[in-house]
């Protein structure tokens, strides 16, 4: 904060309480008035921590019992998941996502049937613009930059491909970022994924016949990017639709954790946005402890709005502003 402004704030005069306040307090006490003050509640911790520890021990014990009861988990499951394999809390059937030829490329836990196949491969070329805002306390709205999402035909090493690109700017990436997926036009298999934040390029190629390759859904999930916009163009929704996908969560420098995203249609809504009015399916998207609402046009499969809570009293929104 500007030190000058802080100093001016601290120097703002404050009046003194009136002398009769003391007598008013005395009179209130004398007449038996009592006020229950909101004092510290630190004793809560003394009770909660032991209870939480006890609950954790019970949960671990139940998990171990469950794993013994349902013996026969996947012995090839990666380290870390093997302890829980087959347990009631981590069913064996959710340990793998069959992508091609029985190869496992993911681990984790999904709530809904895995979306390991898409019914259509007809991604529609085009370009769409989105505007992002953050609203705090329902009162203060600030611009959070713009996103552009595009699908365009291209070739990669002579192979017919589609470039699925999300680019934009924002408060945390003022120099702009680009998240690009190059996928085979025939199979939608991922050929290359690259990210660029500011002046830092990044990318990875995926071999044609890998033993364990990452699915094409490797996308910028942090900003709810390409994955949803592409997925819903390929997957017709209805009121009872639900499904899960696995995405690699790449952490510095090269560790990859594969986590589940659970998607479920929760209702329908008519929304009016800068780009027009749309009848939409409202899709709940859960990733770890976060939940976003994605509004998908019923007619085109286009994502027209994304709303994501940020903390307790702020909502980050992205709405279609043009196409």
């Amino acid at each position, binding site marked *: 904060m500007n030190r000058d*402004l*802080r100093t001016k704030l601290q120097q703002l*005069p404050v009046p003194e*309480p009136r002398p009769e*306040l*003391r007598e008013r307090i*005395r009179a209130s006490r004398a007449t038996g008035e009592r006020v*229950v*003050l909101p004092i510290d509640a630190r004793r809560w911790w003394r009770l909660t921590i032991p209870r939480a520890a006890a609950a954790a021990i019970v949960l671990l014990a139940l998990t171990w019992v469950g794993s013994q009861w349902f013996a026969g988990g996947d012995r090839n499951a990666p380290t870390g998941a093997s302890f829980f394999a087959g347990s009631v809390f981590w069913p064996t059937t959710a340990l793998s996502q069959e992508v091609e030829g029985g190869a496992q490329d993911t681990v984790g836990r999904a709530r809904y049937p895995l979306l390991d196949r898409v019914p259509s491969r007809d991604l529609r070329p085009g370009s769409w613009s989105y505007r992002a805002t953050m609203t705090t306390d329902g009162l203060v709205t600030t611009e959070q930059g713009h996103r552009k999402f595009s699908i365009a035909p291209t070739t990669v090493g002579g192979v017919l491909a589609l470039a699925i690109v999300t680019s934009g700017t924002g408060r945390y990436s003022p120099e702009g970022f680009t998240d690009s997926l190059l996928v085979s036009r025939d199979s939608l298999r991922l050929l290359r994924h690259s990210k660029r934040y500011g002046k830092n390029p990044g990318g990875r190629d995926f071999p044609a016949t890998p033993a364990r390759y990452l699915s094409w859904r490797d996308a910028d999930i942090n900003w709810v990017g390409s994955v949803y916009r592409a997925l819903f163009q390929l997957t017709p929704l209805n009121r009872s639709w639900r499904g899960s996908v696995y995405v690699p969560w790449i952490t510095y420098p090269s560790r990859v954790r594969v986590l589940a995203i659970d998607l479920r249609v929760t209702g329908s809504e008519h929304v009016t946005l800068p780009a027009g009015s749309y009848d939409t399916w409202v899709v709940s998207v859960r990733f770890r402890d976060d939940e976003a609402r994605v509004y998908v046009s019923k007619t085109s499969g286009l994502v027209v709005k994304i709303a994501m809570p940020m903390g307790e009293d702020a909502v980050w929104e992205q709405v279609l502003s043009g196409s």
Partner: protein
Amino acid sequence: MSMTIPAVRPSSLPRVDAQALGTLYDTYAGQLFRLAYRLLGTREDAEDVVHDVFVGLPEALAHYEERGHLDAWLRRVTVRVALMRQRSRERRREISLHSAADVPTPAGLTPEQIELQAAVNALPGALRSVLVLKEMEGYSHAEIATLLGISAVTSRVRLYRAIRGVRQRLEDRQ
């Protein structure tokens, strides 16, 4: 000044007689009033908060366990009472005759201070609380988060918006 407190207190609780309460008032009332005034913006509300704090103090002191930090404990309690009053006031929309920015300000302010005070008063309560606690009272974001029941990140966001709101209003008036 002497005060008579009815003997309704269980013997196990520490005794705060009239003289002790008077001493506490003389020592702390001024700073607690200033804190409440900065949070609420009006003398009447600030006096009500100090009134409630001192009326409830003899019983509340039975739960005071932070020996040697009475000052900080009283300030936290005062902040909580002020915030409760602020929320209650917002629910009842008490400020219906004036905009929040037009409440009376202390006499003797310079024109610049009047503008600044009006800009602070114009902030929504949630933003004003963080601005006052952080920039005028010196609380950390972690302490503010505990007091307001929000995250430290939210506290930072609110402070940013509060400062921007104040600056925007000052610029608009120039």
